[in-house]
């Protein structure tokens, strides 16, 4: 089983929503479409589902051209950002609805709904109507509807985006389990890098209607093929600086901070990307290269502290474990891990990891 997009392009009027795209998704994989709003995730999913047709290009499923085949005939299910359920059906009837239409016997329906309801912790509320449930439970119902039939393709379009923080964390942890042992291809769109890392599988980074990079999630994260891909897969955004390399010595162009690199590349000017968590407010492990900073903004997120600081005309973010408050304008030392620097050439393509 595989889903393949061949030169798929989508234009609406003069706007190109998806630039010619090639992508092959294999059986039993979770594939994450990672990109900001309007990157084309939803359009791509609708084309995969058959809800929308590409302007040009073909979609192949199991080595069969399914371009233009209606969604009803494709055995897909989809979960949306909004909690989409039939408003005057009970939870049970909602979950059973995809089965009823395909004519599954009532005994089997009962058994399958019961199973999926248990998996999603909905067993106690099968007789309720969707608007009697919390947002989290409504989305669980929508998920159950998607899982109850044996779809070949399950599409999830930012399913956690409308949930509050706690529910999101809770459901996020359950998600990988739900897709285990299923004979299908899962496509999951999200704007959050952390969600992609948690779900594992493969990740495609998208920007402005183009797939920038596709590969194993960790590979995409660790070896971004370009600065754009690295930016899409970094939250808060990656810090960027121009550097000069000569021999094994590197230095920022903006200041005289120097470090050694094992990187075997030509001497010259490069760009370096530093993820915020590779700059900390304390010296720890490999975080040793010192940089002075003046605090611009200091914010606390969960059990981590974000500090936006300037050094010359560098305008960077650091992310440290622990909760602490800095005053705006404070001068402080921060420490960078040079092993984790990502080097890009002048065209913003990856050179190699340091």
């Amino acid at each position, binding site marked *: 089983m595989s889903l393949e997009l061949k030169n798929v392009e989508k234009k609406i009027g003069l706007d190109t929503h998806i630039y010619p795209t090639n992508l092959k998704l294999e059986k039993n994989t979770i594939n994450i479409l990672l990109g900001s709003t309007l990157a084309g995730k939803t359009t791509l999913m*609708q084309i995969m*589902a058959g*809800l929308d047709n590409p302007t040009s290009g073909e979609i192949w499923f199991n080595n069969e051209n399914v371009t233009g085949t209606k*969604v*009803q005939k494709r055995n*897909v*299910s*989809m979960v*949306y*950002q*909004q909690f*989409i359920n*039939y*408003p*005057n*059906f009970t939870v049970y009837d909602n979950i059973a*609805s*995809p089965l009823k*239409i*395909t004519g599954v016997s009532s005994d089997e329906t009962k058994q399958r709904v019961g199973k999926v309801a248990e998996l999603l912790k909905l067993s106690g509320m099968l007789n309720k*109507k969707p*608007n009697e449930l919390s947002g989290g439970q409504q989305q669980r119902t929508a998920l159950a509807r998607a899982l109850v039939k044996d779809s070949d393709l399950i599409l999830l379009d930012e399913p956690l985006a409308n949930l509050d923080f706690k529910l999101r964390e809770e459901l996020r942890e359950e998600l990988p389990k739900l897709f285990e042992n299923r004979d299908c291809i899962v496509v999951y769109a999200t704007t959050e890098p952390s969600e992609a890392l948690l779900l594992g599988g493969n990740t495609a980074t998208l920007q402005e209607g183009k797939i920038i990079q596709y590969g194993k999630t960790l590979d995409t994260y660790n070896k971004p093929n370009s600065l754009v891909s690295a930016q899409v897969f970094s939250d808060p955004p990656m810090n960027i600086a121009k550097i000069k390399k000569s021999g094994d010595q590197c230095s920022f162009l903006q200041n005289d901070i120097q470090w050694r690199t094992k990187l075997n590349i030509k001497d010259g000017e490069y760009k370096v990307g530093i993820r915020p968590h590779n700059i900390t407010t304390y010296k720890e492990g490999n975080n040793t290269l010192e940089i002075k900073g003046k605090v611009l903004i200091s914010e606390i997120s969960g059990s981590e502290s974000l500090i936006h600081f300037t050094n010359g005309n560098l305008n960077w973010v650091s992310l440290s474990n622990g909760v602490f408050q800095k005053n705006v304008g404070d001068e402080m030392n921060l420490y960078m891990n040079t092993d984790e620097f990502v080097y890009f050439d002048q065209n913003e393509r990856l050179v190699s990891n340091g």
Partner: protein
Amino acid sequence: MNKTVNQKAWFFVIPVFVLVAFNAIIPLMTVVNYAFQETFGNNVFMWEGTRWFKQIMLSERFHASLGRQFLFTFIILFIQIPLGIAIALTMPKEGIGVPVCLVLMSMPLLIPWNVVGAMWNIFALPDIGFLGHSLNALGFDYNFTQQIGDAWFTTILMDVWHWTSLVVLLSYAGLRSIQPAYYQAAEIDGASRWAIFTKIELPKMKKVLTIAILLRFMDSFMIYTEPFVLTGGGPGNATAFLSIDLVKMALGQFDLGPAAAMSLIYFFIVLLVCWVFYTLMMRNEEKS
């Protein structure tokens, strides 16, 4: 904690109180006053208790006009609500068609009621009116000023023309508020067009439809100007709906007592029907 006592606050309430008194309480109480007394000239009144109420409740004339009123209201609701939904469903969802349709739909609603009556009167005249003349030319024996069936037909047609737009606009607003994802989800399930209508669109339109039915019920139940100008309640009393009959009694015959009692009964019927309908709809809402 000590609360400060400041009676000056009452001054802020006075304007509202005065306004409500003048536009609601005083007129209503005047009617109540008439309803329980016999009114003579020179402001002489005599207490009659509930005599006028009994008289109205037992009067065949009242039963007849109440019956006509309910029949009329049910017929126009039965036509306008489904027709309005049907038109709303076929209206375009995007592009230049949207404002064009909305403006066209709003036109009848913007025309003053007596003008609607006058328009339809002339339109339907059997000798010179376009509708009346055409129907007769086609071989129908149509004359709304003389035949009861034709009078009803014309009155209902006029009301449908005038007010279906309101149902259309409300239904359209309800339909537009359904997120596209619902339709996509139904499409993925392979639901039929009819299933989409009954399982998604109707439940999602329930609230606006409740409002539409309430508004159309109240307006049609209190209809006066249009049939007054069109048929004047005739032929005979065939289209004398409650309000037309009421005005005849109050101003034509100057039976102030019975007319006042009838006004109050009329008022309570409207109130009761609206309350029962709304409560039923909202009780279902809580359940679902």
